[in-house]
């Protein structure tokens, strides 16, 4: 109800100020052929902005502080002896009852006289503050409006002002990205630092044993060597890329260069479905289907392959990443100018020669960028690895054996039954921070590569 009234008042303010600015601007034109700098629409928006911003500011202030003020006012209505007799719970209950009385909903049971009077006082207080805020908002808006309207003249650069506000809004939007990063770092750093008060950073970054003692508390935290996790992460990522890059790239080449248009139109989104399947589904696919298959296949070759291993996780993750590589590469290949392709065909190159010798080198920066994006995805992937990697944080080089990764350990340590104040769980934040830094480095590297290639060939 109140919200509706506020919205209506704001709408009226908006409409009036816009129309008035518009009309005044119109009037300028008809006056005597003077050149008006901005169009009436801009003058309208100009005066609307000047009206809405002060009005909204007042409302926001009330929105922010109103609840607290009302509460302390209501508490002040209670008799001293009642107040003293109530604990927090009781006070809350009483306040709720008074509020129910004030809104006219009523309460069940006996109503104490002080409750009755407080309810009535609160009711009028609520009405007065609401009306007061609204009047204040209208006044503030009105003041802004009068100022803006007075300024409207042929020379007023209303368009520039309005566009500056639009520009600021756009800037604010792109600042969200920065804020996100700041937020991520801030929410990781403090906890990560707490972790490093337990564990020496050197032992963390260069340790070769990952054996948190989850029952041990802070006194006996266990070992937190990052290297086994890092090695596992890199191994799985490498295997994933070994699967995704050839398949994805060749699929992209086939789609963009060989396939008939209709086939491409169908096949491309079809493959992209792979990117949208929840990774947990892939995880089970890995555990139930791919893992045993690889084990049996390995047995055929006389290899001992664990059903859950870096290989299994990597292969399935590779499958998941295929669309990233293929879709992005496909777009990039299509952007290579036709003239280059024609140049090679004109020399008598076959299609595959053209692709290999001309198209791919020309598209390389973009493709490398796509690869690195896929690498980041692989590094950050969690669910597949949780299920398929075997969760064995031991430093070893054999991809046929189980490993563990950074993301898995984050999930394990943060969502397990571990002590959340001890290093056992804080390590999750340190790992998150590490992961963030790793992807950051990767991206800076990607940008560098892409720039260098661009410079060379443009």
């Amino acid at each position, binding site marked *: 109800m109140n919200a509706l009234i506020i919205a209506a008042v704001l709408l009226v303010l908006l409409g009036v100020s816009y129309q008035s600015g518009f009309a005044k601007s119109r009037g300028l034109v008809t006056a005597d052929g003077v050149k008006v700098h901005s169009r009436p629409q801009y003058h309208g928006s100009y005066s609307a902005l000047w009206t809405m911003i002060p009005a909204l500011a007042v409302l926001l202030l009330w929105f922010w502080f109103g609840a607290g003020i009302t509460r302390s006012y209501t508490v002040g209505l209670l008799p001293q002896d009642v107040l003293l007799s109530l604990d927090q719970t009781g006070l809350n209950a009483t306040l709720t009852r008074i509020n129910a009385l004030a809104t006219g909903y009523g309460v069940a049971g006996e109503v104490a006289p002080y409750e009755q009077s407080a309810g009535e006082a609160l009711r009028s207080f609520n009405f007065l503050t609401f009306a007061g805020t609204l009047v204040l908002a209208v006044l503030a808006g009105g003041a802004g409006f009068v100022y803006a309207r007075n300024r409207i003249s042929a020379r007023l650069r209303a368009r520039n002002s309005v566009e500056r506000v639009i520009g600021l809004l756009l800037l604010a939007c792109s600042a969200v990205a920065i804020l996100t990063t700041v937020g991520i770092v801030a929410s990781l750093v403090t906890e990560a630092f707490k972790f490093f008060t337990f564990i020496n950073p050197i032992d963390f970054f260069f340790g070769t044993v990952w054996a948190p003692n989850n029952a041990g508390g802070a006194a006996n935290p266990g070992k937190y060597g990052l290297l086994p996790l890092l090695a596992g992460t890199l191994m799985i990522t490498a295997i994933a890329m070994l699967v995704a890059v050839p398949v994805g790239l060749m699929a992209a080449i086939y789609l963009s260069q060989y396939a008939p*248009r209709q086939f491409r139109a169908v096949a491309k989104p079809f493959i992209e479905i792979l990117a949208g399947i929840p990774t947990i589904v892939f995880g089970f696919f890995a555990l139930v289907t791919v893992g045993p298959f690889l084990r049996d296949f390995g047995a055929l070759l006389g290899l001992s392959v664990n059903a859950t291993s870096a290989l299994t996780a990597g292969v399935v993750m590779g499958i998941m990443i295929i669309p990233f590589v293929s879709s992005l590469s496909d777009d990039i290949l299509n952007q290579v*100018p036709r*003239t*280059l*392709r*024609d*140049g*090679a*065909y*004109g*020399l*008598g*190159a*076959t299609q595959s*020669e053209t692709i290999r*010798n*001309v198209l791919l*080198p*020309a598209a390389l920066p973009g493709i490398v960028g796509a690869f690195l994006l896929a690498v980041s995805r692989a590094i950050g992937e969690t669910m597949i690895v949780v299920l398929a990697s075997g969760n064995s944080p031991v430093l070893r080089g054999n991809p046929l054996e189980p490993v563990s990764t950074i993301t898995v350990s984050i999930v394990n340590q943060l969502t397990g039954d571990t002590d959340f104040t001890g290093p056992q769980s804080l390590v999750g934040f340190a790992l998150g921070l590490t992961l963030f830094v790793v992807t950051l480095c990767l991206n800076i590297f990607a940008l560098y590569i892409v720039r260098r290639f661009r410079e*060379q*060939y*443009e």
Partner: protein
Amino acid sequence: MNPTDFVDRPIRLTARDVTVHYGPKQALHGISIDIPDRAVTSFIGPSGCGKSTFLRCINRMNDTIEGAKVGGRIELDGQDIYAPDLDVVELRARIGMVFQKPNPFPKSIYENVAYGPKIHGIARNKADMDEIVISSLRKAGLFEEVKDRLNEPGTGLSGGQQQRLCIARAIAVGPEVILMDEPCSALDPIATAIIEELIDELRENYTIVIVTHSMQQAARVSQKTAFFHLGNLIEHGDTEDIFTNPVNKQTQDYIMGRIG
């Protein structure tokens, strides 16, 4: 130069009743023409009349365009180039092409020229290749300018140099025919002059077909001229005749309408 020098050159390419459709749209309506050896034939005509389309028929570049269908018959030395058993790759090695916008590969100058010989397996060894590259660059009149930076990217050259690099690249394969589609339209007059001179020299060893939108250029460099209009070949003959004595009313209109 005296046009009669060329009238008796043997015929290298013959086209008979060539039609091209792009999807539903017919771009060429039964073109028949003979193109002589060791002479420059130029195709002129207003924009969109099908000059490039016909040029692309000659080395079957239209194969690479989705939806393009070619009808009729084109022969190179009496051999049907649209015969089913003909190898397009081989054909394109025999008929080279230079495009409107210089399009060097994003590789070094050396690799640009060496690319054709390499894929066709023409050079037997490194020395062979070096020789081919150098002689091609020399024929294209570019060698002196780039000899110190053969390993720098071809894309770093100026427009006129790039176009000559593309010509060198085409020559390196040892083609018999060279097709050029408005090779100077992206170049300034000085670069254009250099390329025109080069074409004049190349004429002695190659059959050259050039598409141009400049009638002066056609007059300057070619011995035979063909005038296209709306997908038809309107008139075709010795350049001198076409420009001074056009038989067809349309040709006349076009040439008189406005020069340049």
